[in-house]
């Protein structure tokens, strides 16, 4: 059954259709939530709250945007809200833009991510690196670069202006690249 049909049935009160939509997106939502909320418990909580929002408001869903786009936006806002209420975690400051790009540190990355992923160590390195980013930078990077939102869509989802999205994206990319530099430079 196509997604549009499932949404229509769910809007008419078909619980099986609703359950199918949840199952269709739970992996995607969990994966995304884990990366931006930083741990398993928060990711699970965010996933539950996101789908609860979907269940409550499915009747109002107009279909103008994709359901996945709407779900990513809910996850992002939920994780940002949790991060703002829990300021104990210290993040790296990205204010010093000059320090983010050091020409001396540019080396050739000869190893493919797929090859490194085979030994299972890469995921831990990726997790540690992205966890150091401030939450709003993390969300912008994930929406724009990983999920493929446009700059404008990322701005709408995060309530940031287009220049603010670009600035955060620029710094997040440079920061993550630096964090992975040792791994990819010497991982061969």
């Amino acid at each position, binding site marked *: 059954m196509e997604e549009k049909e499932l949404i229509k049935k769910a809007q008419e009160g078909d619980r099986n259709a609703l359950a199918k939509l949840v199952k269709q997106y739970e992996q995607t939502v969990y994966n995304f939530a884990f990366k931006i909320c930083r741990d398993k418990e928060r990711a699970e909580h965010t996933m539950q709250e996101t789908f609860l929002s979907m269940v409550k408001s499915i009747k109002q869903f107009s279909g103008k945007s994709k359901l996945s786009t709407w779900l990513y936006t809910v996850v992002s806002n939920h994780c940002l809200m949790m991060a703002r209420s829990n300021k104990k975690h210290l993040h790296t400051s990205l204010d010093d833009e000059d320090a983010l790009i050091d020409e001396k540190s540019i080396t050739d990355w000869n190893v493919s991510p797929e090859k490194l992923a085979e030994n299972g160590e890469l995921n831990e390195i990726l997790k540690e690196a992205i966890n150091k980013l401030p939450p709003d930078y993390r969300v912008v990077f994930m929406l724009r670069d990983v999920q493929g939102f446009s700059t404008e869509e990322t701005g709408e989802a995060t309530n940031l202006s287009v220049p603010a999205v*670009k600035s955060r994206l620029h710094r997040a990319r440079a920061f993550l690249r630096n964090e992975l530099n040792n791994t990819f430079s010497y991982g061969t």
Partner: protein
Amino acid sequence: MVHNHKPTCKDVMNHICDNLGEDLDSPKCTEIKNHLEQCDTCQKYHKSIEITIQSYKTYEVKITDDAHKNLMDFLGLEDCE
């Protein structure tokens, strides 16, 4: 925006971070592309940013059976399995 100087490596690296995936047809972008084609260091930087993004695209965290069950229970949809 008109630039009177040729872009430096730093300019190019900043530009890569700013505009990867964007439309690159402005005069400034043409200069950047020309620099990139000839500069080994900037090519390495460009490649490393692309690999960074690709790494996060392929990094997937699997939902556990327990998390799935908890979700269906939480939503009251456990009977729809």
